[in-house]
């Protein structure tokens, strides 16, 4: 296994490419690609990649990028793309369409602040804007997590029990543009891990159907229920995929979430993406100092693993949620989901912290402050803004 020093974008590009190439003996790979900072490097990587059976279509917009993926997927190919921020916003109509079509497209979302005013730096508000779309969503903390999660995303999305598109998020610049060492998956291993992509309802001349036409309320309701059932099967399918991944690649990626030092913790902090790594360092140092601090790395956002959260938190009295996103008039989006997950645990206090929005630099010191704040609280209040950029 080759360990390389690459950017997050290059790691993602490589993984999408080998995954696409892995379908060369089936119906190939298709990508609709439109560049946007900080995702651009992924698109350039894919355009340069020489697929045995694949095409990267340089389209005129994100809306069409997803449309090309839908067309490709409707024709039975493995379909991939990547976007960010306003690109995702512009793509939104087709993001929903791809999900309702039940097409297992895999998209990289490089998190970036939505604008205008223009801001190119990290904020999860873009991918979380799509939380109500029928997509799986995974949030990754490092290059290795990113690479492994992309491969898992293909496995789960294309599984006949699921057949839903999947989005894999990483932090803009903080992950996408940072050079780090990573085990890049080799083609041969990926070929073993990923079965051929089969879109069972692809358009075929011998079985003509109209996909996406007028649908009455009773069928629409039924289709929504079908999507929910598929979402509910994700934990099981993901667990199977992780076991097989471990067999082939010799390492075990995180699944729905990663609960660390939670069993005896007095307080637990929850974070996602790169902030979860920073948090891990802080938690480890506080543990060394004898404090009963635990953490949960939130990885799978859709479906939201409520049961896993409930059991990881257990009887812990205080939970702090770090949200690098903001739903105006409400608060952090992870917080909302976690509060819902802990609805049967009235003794647990859940406090939200809005931190690092608009690309603000999140340092260990800031996280220490948050830990201290959480320990000191006896009652939760409205989400707390930890303004970091002004320091």
């Amino acid at each position: 296994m080759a360990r390389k020093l690459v950017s997050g974008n290059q790691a993602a590009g490589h993984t999408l490419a080998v995954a696409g190439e892995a379908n060369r003996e089936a119906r190939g790979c298709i990508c609709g690609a439109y560049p946007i900072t900080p995702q651009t490097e992924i698109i350039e990587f894919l355009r340069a990649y020489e697929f045995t059976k694949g095409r990267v279509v340089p389209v005129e917009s994100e809306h069409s990028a997803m449309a090309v993926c839908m067309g490709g997927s409707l024709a039975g190919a493995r379909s991939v793309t990547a976007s960010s921020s306003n690109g995702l916003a512009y793509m939104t109509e087709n993001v929903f369409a791809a999900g309702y079509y039940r097409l297992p497209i895999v998209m990289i979302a490089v998190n970036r602040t939505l604008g205008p005013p223009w801001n190119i730096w990290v904020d999860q508000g873009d991918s979380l804007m799509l939380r109500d779309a029928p997509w799986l969503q995974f949030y990754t903390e490092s290059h290795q997590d990113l690479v492994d999660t992309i491969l898992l995303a293909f496995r789960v999305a294309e599984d006949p029990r699921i057949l839903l598109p999947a989005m894999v998020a990483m932090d803009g610049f903080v992950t996408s543009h940072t050079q780090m060492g990573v085990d890049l998956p080799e083609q041969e291993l990926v070929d073993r891990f990923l079965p051929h992509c089969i879109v069972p309802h692809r358009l075929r001349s011998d079985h003509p159907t109209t996909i996406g036409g007028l649908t009455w309320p009773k069928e629409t309701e039924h289709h929504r229920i079908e999507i929910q059932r598929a979402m509910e099967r994700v934990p099981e399918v993901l667990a199977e995929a992780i076991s097989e991944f471990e067999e082939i690649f010799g390492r075990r990626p995180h699944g729905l979430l990663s609960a660390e030092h939670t069993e005896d913790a007095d307080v637990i902090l929850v974070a996602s993406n790169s902030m979860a790594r920073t948090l891990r360092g802080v938690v480890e140092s506080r543990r060394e100092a004898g404090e009963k601090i635990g953490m949960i790395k939130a990885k799978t956002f859709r479906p939201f693993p409520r049961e896993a959260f409930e059991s990881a938190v257990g009887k812990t009295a205080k939970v702090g949620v770090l949200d690098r996103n903001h739903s105006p008039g409400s608060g952090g989006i992870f917080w909302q989901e976690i509060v819902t997950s802990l609805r049967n645990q009235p003794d647990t206090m859940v406090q939200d912290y809005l931190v690092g929005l608009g690309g603000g630099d999140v340092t260990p010191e800031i996280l220490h402050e948050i830990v201290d704040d959480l320990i000191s609280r006896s009652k939760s209040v409205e989400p707390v803004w930890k303004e970091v950029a002004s320091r």
Partner: protein
Amino acid sequence: MNVVPLNMNANCDTTCDPVLRAGNTNCAGCGMSIGLQWFSEVFRDSKPILAIPACCGIVTAGAFPTSAYSVPIAATTFASAAAVATGLRSVALMNTEENVTVCWAGDGGTYDIGLATLSAAAERNEDIIYICYDNEIYGNTGGQRSSATPEGVVTSTTTSGKSERKKDIMAIMAAHHIPYAATLSVAHREDFIRKLEIAKKTKGFRFLLMLSPCPTGWKSEPEDGVDLIRYAVRCGLFPLYEVYDGDRYRINVERDQTSIEEYITRQRRYTKGSILAEELTQLIDARWQKLKRIVRAFPADDNKV
């Protein structure tokens, strides 16, 4: 070919069905339906796959899980037909499948919301046949103006007649240097079929614009639709011509002495005095002068085509 009556739905034999089967919900006398029947004659055996954006053309398919179409259809989002078709065709090509990918779109999805997507697919010279059935109105939503609505026409959003001119989509498409662009008339069957045959033989992006009579939107009698288009062609309002590679032009039917009155007096969308026949005639004259100049300057070489 319309060979068999289609009243034996239960166990239909899809190999002999026309592309648009009976039992569809298009209005009586719909021009698009005629276009689809002729499309069927030429393409039925070519395994067509259609990408249809939001428009009457997809509503007519009927409700899930049935389909009034006997070929695979992707009902795309409004602006996405040409991009979805790109994906479909790319995968077909990489798998060396012999089929034809077709976008079947109304004027809204072509002239307006889908124009960027269409332009991009044309610029990439995707191997797609794009057919716009242009009824000059947002028919699916009940008859609002589009940029294809001609000057003077009354719609629910231009209640005293549209004051702007109709967009020249053919000029736009020709400017993309696509291998083939042509206008189609449902009153000129031989010309229509011939152009579909050319489109079928040509590789790359092919754009066909069909003026589609819409009795509901045009407020005309369903039985008059084909005659209306014949008048539109004869009086010069809708020239039948074709453009090869964006720079070789040929007019297929010359205008004659038919008066625009024949066309506008049979449609209530024109009969509110919002535009006079003389004004329209002047516009037609000017357009023809321009078209004739272009054709003289850039003629299609008959031997080369």
